[in-house]
């Protein structure tokens, strides 16, 4: 099913982001990160390194943590995307977001959306993570401010709060 009309011209495609179906015309090689930020105005995902090293562009795609800077938007066709904007319910922050606030897990904030999505991905798979699990789960997300300790503590606390609620 090679579609020659797709040749170097924008294509129409849809995906779901934070529960809303979106349809847009985009170049298929546009990075998902750019589509989210420029077409959809979702600027929570940040561009840090642009090469999949820093994790600041992390989003969830069909439940899997991914670097949106490394995804051509055509590969997101019909996917279910969750960005940091989708974690809070209105003004009600998620347990992870609350814990990051309480434990000083954010300083400049550039890495924070990716950190929280990576932590969310981890806690969905391991509700009672060890410190090693937390370190591994966040190992693809770089922070140049906090020294990581507050972030690890925030994730551990969010896991405890989730377990008791």
């Amino acid at each position, binding site marked *: *099913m*090679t*579609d020659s009309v*797709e*040749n*170097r011209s924008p294509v129409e495609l849809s995906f779901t982001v934070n529960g809303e179906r979106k349809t847009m015309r*985009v*170049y*298929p*090689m*546009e*990075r998902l990160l750019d589509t989210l930020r420029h077409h959809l105005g979702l600027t929570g995902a940040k561009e840090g390194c*642009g*090469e*999949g*090293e820093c*994790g600041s562009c*992390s989003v969830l795609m069909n439940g*899997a*943590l*991914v*670097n949106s*800077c*490394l*995804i*051509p938007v*055509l*590969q997101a*066709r019909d996917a279910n995307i969750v960005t940091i904007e989708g974690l809070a319910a209105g003004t009600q922050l998620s347990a992870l977001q609350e814990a990051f606030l309480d434990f000083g897990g954010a300083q400049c904030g550039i890495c924070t959306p990716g950190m929280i999505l*990576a932590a969310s*991905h*981890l806690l969905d798979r391991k509700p009672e993570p060890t410190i090693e699990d937390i370190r*591994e*789960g*966040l*190992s*693809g*997300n*770089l922070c140049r401010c906090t020294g990581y300790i507050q972030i690890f503590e925030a994730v551990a606390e969010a896991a405890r709060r989730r377990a008791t609620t």
Partner: protein
Amino acid sequence: MRSDPADYQLVAPASLRAVVSLLAEEPGAWLPIAGGTDVMVQYAAGKLSARKLVSIWNLPELRRIEVLSDEIRIGAACTYTDLREHEVVKLEFPLLASAAGWTGGIANQNRGTLGGNIVNASPAADSLPALLAYEAELILVSVRGERRLPYLDFHTGYKKTKLAADELVQAVCLPRRFLGYFSYTRKVGARNAQAISKACIAALGRMSGGVVQEARIALGSVAPVPLRLAETERAVKGKSVDPSILAVARKTAAAEIRPIDDIRSTVRYRSSVAGNLVAEFLEKLSISGAKA
């Protein structure tokens, strides 16, 4: 200079057959892209020479692990996460499951694929020494049909492979005969995740009557290709592991590897670490034999 998406074509055929037909129409013109963990990095840096890309991400024919009685066939577009979480891979091919767990962070493990690691052909790739130790074979596919070749013969030089311009790696086959082997793997790098190795090892062995019955040793980042140390394996076969055989093994390994100086390490450091890794494997193998 950042790339402009308007300069690139990307198509996503729905079947493997359609992909290989496209490759055959214009051999060499279409670059397959799976999880994008290599291709998109080049693209973002403005260094991607291919202008036509064909997505093979999530093609069902390439995203499955078939468990047969004598081998497992891992579809080339299986991710590191797929490998880490697969029960048979974890149990019977722990060297591969471990390497999958070291490769990048979680986000890259969710997108990076075994086939991509093979075709990208970096001598520093974490998963490739394991394939050498397990005597992997590759199934390559094109409109001309399938062919199967030993993975050992696939890399012909730095970033050079036997893949023809119209071919795609379809699957990696691992024989199911290493369950009882002692296995040892270690990566030496600046950091566990997101750091490319300075040197790494994947090795298997069996002891019998106090001597090494069989040793299978592969190293990464010490030569233009992932390297199997055939001479070192021969040198230790039938020997008990003592200081003199460790010295022989270090010396033989040093003669087999061809490390370079680069941004991550030096010839001297890599040579020293390679010897240490081989010796550590043999010592642990010997201890495992004493316990058995």
